[in-house]
């Protein structure tokens, strides 16, 4: 499922508009690398209970490949792809959910948390967060090809 929402409609009323990045003009500009936004989005997504893991085998393989290309951006955060402009950012997430969670509610919570974390910490306006739920983790599925982090 991929649904997106403009941040203007999802931000709760009364929330102060975070400091904007594009304020500075003649005094110099501020540039935020994509990997910064990637890490913030990845941490914010994992904060929501019910998110079991992020990424897929494919995205991890591509990430490992991209890290070898200088300037290709580090993909130390699997399952998070971002596009960062001067004022705005777009975020694509691939998540694996726990069995027994409402995926609709989970996606909504992930989106809300990612938008507020990125907007508050970076001052970028998040124009969309696309969430792809790629897999579901069943309680007894620990011996699948996904190596669990904790035995």
């Amino acid at each position: 499922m991929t649904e997106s929402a403009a941040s203007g409609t999802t931000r709760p009323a009364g929330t102060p508009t975070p400091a904007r990045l594009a304020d500075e003009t003649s005094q110099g500009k501020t540039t935020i690398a994509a990997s910064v936004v990637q890490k913030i989005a990845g941490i914010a997504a994992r904060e929501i209970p019910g998110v079991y893991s992020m990424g897929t085998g494919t995205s991890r393989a591509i990430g490992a490949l991209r890290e070898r290309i200088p300037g290709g951006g580090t993909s130390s955060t699997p399952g998070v792809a971002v596009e960062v402009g001067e004022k705005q950012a777009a975020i694509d997430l691939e998540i694996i959910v726990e069995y027994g969670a409402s995926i609709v509610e989970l996606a909504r919570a992930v989106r809300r948390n990612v938008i507020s974390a990125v907007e508050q910490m970076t001052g970028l306006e998040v124009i969309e967060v696309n969430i792809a739920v790629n897999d579901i983790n069943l309680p007894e599925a620990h011996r699948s090809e996904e190596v669990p982090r904790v035995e």
Partner: protein
Amino acid sequence: MSAELAERIASAVLAHPAVAMLHAGPFGAIASYLPGRRVDGVKIALDGSTVDVAVVVDLAALEAGRPIPVVARQLRTAVRELTGNARVDVLIVDLVQAQRNEEDRR
């Protein structure tokens, strides 16, 4: 530009609590080459009109209510105290979760 200016800028930037370290940028292009040493993360244009600063920020400081635009503005102010009216471009290269010098700050 005096050779020590780059080092004074570097220590002013590092003094900010949200800055974990200076970084030479994605291609190692943001650095000052001084006789016998190299200052990563600070580049001063030949005419001194522009200063580039590239840093890695600390996630803990951002979560403590210090967003990147605020950090950048404070860094810009700190650098302009040393350089006068130069334009200061701030690049946030990366983010770390390490809690640097937690004792030192208290």
